[in-house]
C-alpha cells in the first residue's frame, strides 16, 4: 500500500492536480481493445485508481476489432484502437445508437530494423522500402535494392496481417499492395525481434518500444522523410513529426453517453488526456504535442 502511495505522489510532480482528485467517485469503467494501446491504458488506469480507488477500471486486450465488437454491443465504455475506426464499425455503432468521440493518446513510431551487425543498410527511402517489401513474385536480394549491397536473399519479418501495425505499414508504404509473400509473419513483436536478431539478412518492422528494448542487438534504419532528411526514430523525432511517414497514431474511442451520464468515466477520460503524455512515454510510446491534448480536453468539456 505505502509503496504505491509514494509513487503516486512522485508522479504527481509531473501531472497537474486535477479536480478528479478531490471528489471521491464510484463506479465501474470497462475498457477493451487494441493490445498496442493496452500498456498506455494500463498505466492510466493504475494511476487513476490511486486517486479514485472506488472506481473499478478494467482493461482488456481483445484487439482493435474485438474491442469495437464489445463497444458496439455496449459492453465497454471505451475502446482502444491502433487504427482509426472502420466504416463497418462506425455503421454498426450508428445502428446501435452509440455516439462516440475519438481521442488520440499518443504516437507509435514504427521502427524498421536490421540486425546490429548489418553494416550495409545506413538509410532507406520510402521507395526503397516499398521495393523491398512489395511482393513481386520472386525472391529479392539486397543487391536488387541498391548497388553494392550483398547478393544475399532478404528475409522479411512483419507483424501479422491482422494487426494495426501491419495495416498502417501496408497503407503508407505499400499503398495497400501485397506484402512480400515470403515474409514471416507473427502476431507477437517479441517473436519478430527474435527473428531479426537471429538472421543477418533480415529486415523487419515493429513498434518503437520493441526496438528501444533491443537496441543492443538491433539497428533502427533512418528513413528519408519528405524533406529529404534521413531520420532515426526517437522520442523527439516522432513527437515533432520529423520521423515520417512511419509514425502512427493510437486512439481511444469513448461513448459520449458514458461521459455525460457517468462522472467516473468523464473524470477518467479527463485524467487520461491530462496524463497520456507522460504515461505513454513511460511505456515506450511517444507523446503528442501539448496543444493536441489541450484541444482534446476542451472537446471533452463540451461533452460533459
Amino acid at each position: 500500500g505505502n509503496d504505491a502511495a509514494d509513487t503516486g505522489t512522485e508522479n504527481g510532480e509531473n501531472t497537474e492536480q486535477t479536480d478528479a482528485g478531490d471528489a471521491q467517485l464510484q463506479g465501474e469503467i470497462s475498457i477493451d481493445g487494441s493490445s498496442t494501446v493496452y500498456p498506455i491504458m494500463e498505466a492510466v488506469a493504475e494511476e487513476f485508481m490511486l486517486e479514485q480507488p472506488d472506481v473499478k477500471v478494467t482493461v482488456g486486450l481483445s484487439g482493435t476489432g474485438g474491442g469495437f465488437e464489445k463497444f458496439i454491443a455496449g459492453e465497454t465504455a471505451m475502446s482502444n484502437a491502433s487504427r482509426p475506426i472502420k466504416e463497418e464499425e462506425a455503421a454498426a455503432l450508428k445502428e446501435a445508437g452509440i455516439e462516440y468521440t475519438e481521442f488520440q493518446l499518443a504516437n507509435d513510431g514504427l521502427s524498421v530494423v536490421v540486425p546490429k551487425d548489418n553494416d550495409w543498410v545506413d538509410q532507406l527511402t520510402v521507395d526503397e522500402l516499398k521495393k523491398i517489401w512489395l511482393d513481386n513474385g520472386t525472391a529479392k536480394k539486397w543487391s536488387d535494392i541498391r548497388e553494392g549491397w550483398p547478393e544475399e536473399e532478404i528475409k522479411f519479418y512483419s507483424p501479422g496481417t491482422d494487426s494495426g501495425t501491419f495495416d498502417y505499414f501496408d497503407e503508407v508504404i505499400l499503398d495497400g499492395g501485397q506484402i512480400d509473400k515470403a515474409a514471416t509473419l507473427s502476431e507477437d513483436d517479441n517473436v519478430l525481434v527474435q527473428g531479426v536478431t537471429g538472421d543477418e539478412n533480415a529486415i523487419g518492422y515493429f513498434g518503437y518500444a520493441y526496438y528501444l528494448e533491443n537496441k543492443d542487438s538491433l539497428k533502427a534504419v533512418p528513413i528519408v522523410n519528405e524533406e529529404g532528411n534521413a531520420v532515426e526514430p526517437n522520442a523527439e523525432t516522432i513527437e515533432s513529426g520529423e520521423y515520417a511517414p512511419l509514425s502512427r497514431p493510437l486512439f481511444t474511442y469513448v461513448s459520449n453517453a458514458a461521459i455525460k451520464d457517468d462522472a467516473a468515466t468523464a473524470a477518467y477520460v479527463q485524467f487520461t488526456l491530462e496524463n497520456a503524455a507522460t504515461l505513454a512515454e513511460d511505456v515506450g510510446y511517444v507523446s503528442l504535442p501539448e496543444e493536441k491534448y489541450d484541444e482534446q480536453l476542451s472537446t471533452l468539456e463540451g461533452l460533459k
Partner: protein
Amino acid sequence: MRVMSFIGVLGLKGAIGLKTKNKELSPVHELLEKKYNGGFLNRREKIIPIILFFMAAVSVLTTLGIVLTLIFETFTFFGDVSIVEFFTATEWYPFSKTEAVYGIWPLVLGTLKITLIASLFAVPLGLAVALYLSEYAGARTRKIMKPILEVLAGVPTIVYGFFALTFVTPFLRGLFPSIELFNAISPGIVVGIMIIPTIVSLSEDALSSVPEPVRHGALAIGSTKWETASKVIFPAALSGILASIVLGISRAIGETMIVSIAAGSTPSAALNLTSSLQTMTSYIVQVTTGDAGFGTTIYYSIYAVGFTLFVFTLAMNVLAQFISKRFREEY
C-alpha cells in the same frame, strides 16, 4: 464339546425366541414397521434421475450450442465467400486489400503438419514412458512421475510456445541451419511435449488396469517383461491407449498458443516443414486478438474456420471410436 455349546446356545436363544413371539418389539422394529405403514415411496427417487439426465444432457446441449454458435456466422461468411472457393482455393489470404482469397487448404495443411509431427513425437515417446512406468518402473518412480506429469499438463501453453521459440528452434537450427526461425518442426515437437502428459497418464491407467493375474499368467510361462508387456498387456489395454492417443491428438489439433508463437502466421500451402505456417486455431486467435474490423468478412471467417475445425475433430473422434471398438479385448 461342540454339542455342549450347541445346547447352551439353544437354551439362550430359546429365551429370545419367546420374547419375539410375545411381540415385544425392539425400537428398530417399531420404527421400521412405522415406515412400512407410512410407505417407502420417496419423491426424491423419481426426481433425481431426471435431474441427472439433464446434467448429462448438458454435453449434448454444448455440442448443439457449438454448432449453433458457429453455423450462423458461418452462413454469413459464405454469403461473402463462395463455398467452392473455400474448399478448393489453395491460398488463404484474407487480409489482402486487393484480392482476398479464402482457401482453407493452407490452414488445414498447417494443422496437419503440426499434428503429424506432434503425434510422431509424442505417441511413441508417450507410450514408451507409459510402458516404462507401468511395466518396468518401481512403485516409487511411478508415484513421483505421475503427479509431475499432471502438473505439467497445467503449464500454460504460452510457456511451451516460448520454449519452442527460444530453446527448441535455436537448437534445431544449430543442427540443421536450413530450418527457418518459424517452422513446423519445433512447434510440432513442443506440441508433442505438451500432449505427452495426457498420453502417458491415460495410457498408464489403461495399462495398469489390466488385471495383475493376466500379467502373472504370462510371466509364469517364462515370458520376459517385454513379451508380457507387448504381447499381452498392450493389446489388452489397446482401447484405452487408443483413447488416450485420440485425446492427445485432438489436443494437438486444437493447440493454439504454441503454434501462434513458434510457427509464425503465414498460411502456406507448401509441403515443406522448415518454413513458417499457420494453423486453423492460430488463425482464430490471430483474428480474435487482432485489429480486424468487426462485421467484416474476416471477422466472420473465424467462425467458418472454427466450424471446419470442429468438423475435423469430430471426424477424427468418430473414426477413433470405430477403431477402438474393433480392437476392444475384454478382460
